[in-house]
């Protein structure tokens, strides 16, 4: 797999990066946060699939923890990637919105 590809976990990865952009969180806190801001209920298998890929890419890193709930935080590289993804999504949304307006005659 190419180093910048996240396969079927790309959506989950984007959600995880977005969640961690507001501060470090452990798995359950991420799931709750993602549900709150996107309405998406990530299942544990999908969440940890995304986490393992993001760690592999160096886009997030685990923080030390004395409990079983290990927190993660976004790295500088992860922030750059998230910024690019957000810019791309904004561009897609902008184009989609303008074409929708043309189609619907606004």
């Amino acid at each position, binding site marked *: *797999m190419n*180093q910048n590809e996240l*396969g*079927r976990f790309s959506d989950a990865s984007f959600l995880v990066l977005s969640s961690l952009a507001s501060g470090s969180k*452990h*798995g*359950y806190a991420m*799931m709750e946060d993602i549900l709150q801001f996107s309405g998406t209920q990530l*299942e*544990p*298998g*999908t*969440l*940890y*699939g995304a*986490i*393992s*890929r993001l*760690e*592999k*890419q*160096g886009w*997030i*890193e*685990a*923080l*030390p*923890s*004395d*409990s*079983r*709930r*290990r927190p993660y935080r976004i*790295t500088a*590289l992860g922030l750059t990637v998230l910024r690019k993804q957000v810019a791309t999504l904004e561009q897609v949304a902008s184009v989609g919105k303008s074409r929708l307006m043309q189609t619907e005659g606004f």
Partner: protein
Amino acid sequence: MRWIIRCYPRQWRDRYEDEMLALLEECKITPKTMLDLIVGAVDAHLNYSGITEGVVNMVNRVRSGVVMTFCAFIVFGVGWAMLQRINDPVPNFQTAAHAHPELNVLHGALLIVGCIGFVVFLLAGMPLFFVSIKRAMEQRKKSVLLPFGIALGCALAALLATGGIAWWRPERHVYVYLLSYLAVMAILLITGTVAVSLVVARTEFQARELRLVFVPETAILISMVIAALLSILSLIRITSYAPQLLITQDVNGPLFITGIVFMALGAIFSGLALRRSWGAKLKSVEG
């Protein structure tokens, strides 16, 4: 849910099992969750290459490189300390150095290079050790605090033993006391080295804390290699022009050679440690 987690690859479980189980304890388990975990296990088998990748692996590699460098420096230091006895007794050395000034230059250079390596070792090592202890105290991590206590005990015992023998100055059976002292110091050094290594090895460092560690590792390696080469050159010159220096009050020729072997071993281990850290750094850049 443990049976499903066991379907994940071992490397994946070593890394994520505990936190995944903690998460599952907080989640409502539905058939969808179970199906998701099974798909996740298949995906992990197909795509997770675990210990060869990731920031965690990078940190682990760099951390083990730090431990290797520490142990290598201790081995090197023992050899270096043996070589420092070459000018004992001083009048003999000064007489030989007067006839062959390069002996003095080589001995001085060896001392300076070793001291530079030691200063770099302290400047780079003490902050990491401080982070280890601070974090262990915050988290009350016994697996780190216990070896720290042992290391501290070894340092105190070494101080007491040295102070005691200096104060006592035995006049009879001097060699028995000297050998006993050396044996005690060797045991304390080995125990202390293992304890400090465990403190560092059991600390969960963050990537940014180990980011620049290859810089002092490189400096330490360079100082070790230069010191080892200087020692070899020094011993060759002494063997050729002043062999009487090889028999001092408490060290002789074979022990000087042992010292050089220790220094060379330290340099080799340090090189391996740097290679380990450097490989991890490159991997992080590639990621």
